């Protein structure tokens, strides 16, 4: 779908913020795929015990290292703050998982959305907009139920509430201050959309489910923890 779309924006306009912890076995492949298409990559090595940071640097990413593990939300915030420093000339910031579940091709397609709508500020990836998705049943049920609840909590009609692949204009990144350090940060993007009436859309993306990405993914039981943690925000 839309594989041949081209955008007036180039991948070099995008900084991919990629939190990573102990991803040494896969991170080179994930980064290489992005770098080959021309995207810039900022890997946040979140207190890894292995060579994740070194490998990411060799694969062509900028690497920033948290001396201790903070969590995915905290890593993204570090990436956003660096993006706003202006060291790298960019117009967009993407959030991209390090475990290889996201596709660089999907990100390239998402970039074209900004051609069609000059007011668009955020593009959220959705695994459920692709009819041939391979989302496991339990995960599909939980995620679609969570997306349904977003209608009531945020007034947003989403199909995928917890997709880690997002593309944001730099002007939106200025408004972000992720407080949730761990995986519960996804809802903070929705809060931002609601609070600032940010112009958003969803775009179908492919998520790769293999043994590795499943092992790195969040178990369903963690959704309880995320909900509980929100009580203390």
């Amino acid at each position, binding site marked *: 779908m839309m594989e041949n779309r081209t955008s007036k924006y180039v991948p070099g306009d995008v900084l991919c913020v990629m939190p990573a912890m102990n991803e040494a076995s896969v991170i080179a492949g994930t980064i290489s795929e992005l770098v080959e298409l021309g995207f810039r990559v900022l890997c*946040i090595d979140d207190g890894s015990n292995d060579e994740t940071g070194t490998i990411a640097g060799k694969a062509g990413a900028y690497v920033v290292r948290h001396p201790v593990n*903070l969590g995915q939300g905290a890593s993204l*915030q570090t990436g956003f703050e660096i993006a706003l420093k202006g*060291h790298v000339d960019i117009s967009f910031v993407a959030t991209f998982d390090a475990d290889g579940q996201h596709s660089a091709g999907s990100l390239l397609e998402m970039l074209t959305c900004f051609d069609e709508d000059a007011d668009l500020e955020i593009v959220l990836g959705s695994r459920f907009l692709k009819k041939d998705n391979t989302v496991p049943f339990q995960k599909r049920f939980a995620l679609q139920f969570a997306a349904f609840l977003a209608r009531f909590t945020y007034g947003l009609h989403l199909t995928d509430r917890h997709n880690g692949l997002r593309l944001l204009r730099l002007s939106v990144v200025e408004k972000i201050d992720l407080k949730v350090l761990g995986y519960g940060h996804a809802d903070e993007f929705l809060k931002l959309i609601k609070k600032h009436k940010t112009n958003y859309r969803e775009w179908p993306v492919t998520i790769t489910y293999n043994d590795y990405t499943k092992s790195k993914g969040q178990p369903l039981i963690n959704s309880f923890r995320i909900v509980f943690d929100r009580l203390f925000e």
Partner: protein
Amino acid sequence: MRLIVVLIILSVPLIYFMISNFDRVVGKVTARIGFVIATISFVVSALDPRIVTRIANALGVGRGTDLVTYFVAICLVGLSALSIAKFRSLEARNAQLVRHVAIYEFERNYFPDEP
């Protein structure tokens, strides 16, 4: 509705108020007042259990022991909530510190000449 039920229900917003304002003066004062009240109550209940029974009867609770149980349970929930909120605050400060160090190192490695 029994008075004790009303008091237990009212304790929920009180705990919420305490954890949402724990790092402000009003929250800190409320927590300390709660601590003093709890301490005095426990000392009084130990010295003269009949007082607790009388208060329990006035609140619609049959036994003083039950009243103490309710009170301890509310204190425990409040204390747990307050501890979680405080821990979160410390985590956030730690994250800010770590981030500051990480960004400083990043800029020193990649952009040493930029101000």
